[in-house]
């Protein structure tokens, strides 16, 4: 199924998933959307292990945010009380779990898009009548993401190689370290973007108004079936 489904259908599914993830507030509905997303992921052969490896480092951050969400929500029955102050309530915990589901749904939507190659996604955007300039920018942005990640990792490594034990630093100093990561990354990104702009201009980007593509995406029967199933599934989710 991975190679046979049209990228436009995958974009539609990703859009349905992420929109539902953002709009639905009930935890049971979010769980259903998450399960639907997982099933779609399995059908499109999403590499769950590599997705997990990518988001593994942010898991602690997610957990902290869930706890913060729970602490600042005082509705519902108290679950954990300290000196008469309801630190955790059942409503707060449910809201925290909803937040976690939402994150996973959005990550899954992105993961579904990665099962098509970048050229096909770009072509899908073009055939969906998105202006080529914007489609090209989106594709370039996605292509350069791994480079940005590598850059951040290198800076982080070089900070540690200067003999700084980050684990022993206070939270204030850790935040200060993170602030040092952004400056070179933004600077390098701007420099790279400028060079890329010169390069694409030199190669005749936007030289002509009409642009043709050798490869055209065509909707097949399986795409129509997947599209129809998606509409039924998400209409059902909205209705119930």
């Amino acid at each position: 199924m991975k190679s046979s489904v049209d990228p436009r259908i995958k974009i539609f599914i990703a859009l349905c998933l992420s929109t539902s993830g953002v709009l639905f507030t009930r935890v049971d509905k979010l769980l259903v959307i998450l399960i639907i997303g997982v099933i779609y992921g399995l059908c499109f052969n999403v590499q769950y292990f590599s997705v997990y490896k990518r988001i593994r480092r942010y898991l602690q951050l997610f957990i902290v945010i869930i706890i913060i969400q729970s602490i600042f929500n005082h509705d519902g029955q108290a679950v954990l009380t300290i000196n008469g102050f309801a630190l955790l309530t059942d409503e707060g915990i449910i809201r925290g779990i909803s937040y976690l589901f939402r994150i996973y749904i959005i990550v899954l939507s992105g993961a579904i898009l990665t099962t098509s190659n970048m050229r096909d996604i770009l072509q899908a955007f073009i055939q969906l009548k998105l202006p080529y300039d914007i489609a090209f920018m989106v594709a370039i942005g996605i292509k350069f993401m791994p480079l940005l990640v590598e850059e951040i990792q290198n800076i982080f490594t070089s900070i540690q190689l200067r003999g700084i034990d980050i684990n022993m630093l206070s939270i204030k100093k850790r935040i200060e370290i993170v602030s040092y990561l952004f400056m070179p990354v933004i600077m390098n990104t701007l420099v790279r973007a400028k060079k890329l702009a010169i390069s694409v201009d030199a190669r005749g980007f936007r030289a002509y108004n009409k642009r043709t593509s050798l490869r055209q995406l065509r909707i097949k029967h399986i795409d129509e079936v997947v599209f129809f199933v998606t509409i039924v599934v998400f209409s059902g989710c909205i209705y119930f």
Partner: protein
Amino acid sequence: MKPFISVNNVSYQLQNKEILKDVNFKANCYEWISIIGDNGSGKTTFCKIMMGILKPTKGEIYIDGEPLTEMALFEIGQKIGYLFQNVGHQIFAPSVEEELAFAMRFKEIDEIVISKKIEEMINRFKLQNARHIAPYFLSQGEKQRLAIATILLNNPKFLILDEPTTGLDYERKNELGKLLCQIKNEGIGIIMVSHDIEFVKQYSNRIFQIKDGRVIGEE
């Protein structure tokens, strides 16, 4: 004499491709070792493995008699300095002075000592005219000198330099060569990865070649 860096039967595999195969390598302080090889032969990977940035799939590495697996990156950095292939990835502070002071401030060293050391490094690495400039606006040669200065502030016993001559003209290369010779004469060992055969032959004590992930020769 016990080698400072000892690499025993190290292999490294990435996505089913063997990048390094059973590499054995020993390096002592007071020597300058160069590693040459084609693009993609595994030179940078080898450097990153010796620095503990990448973990070998097989084999052991000892730094100053200690197994590398038992050392954290900050501990390795105090024994070996690493100059990245893209030097821009290791300079990040808003000015040259702050770049030099960065690690010392985090280690809560006295400000008077920091100022003294900054002054010493700025004079030694000829960065007087650049002290208040953001490192991004420095030339490639200045960036490299700044990066080496920040590394030396950690008092390492060894330097691993990944393609330090890239982007340098003849004169800057000679300056870099002389500077590294001075550092070597202070008892700091050097491992350098380079494509620049002329530069390598001029300064190195030993030259290794890596081909298809194997160390195939030593001059």
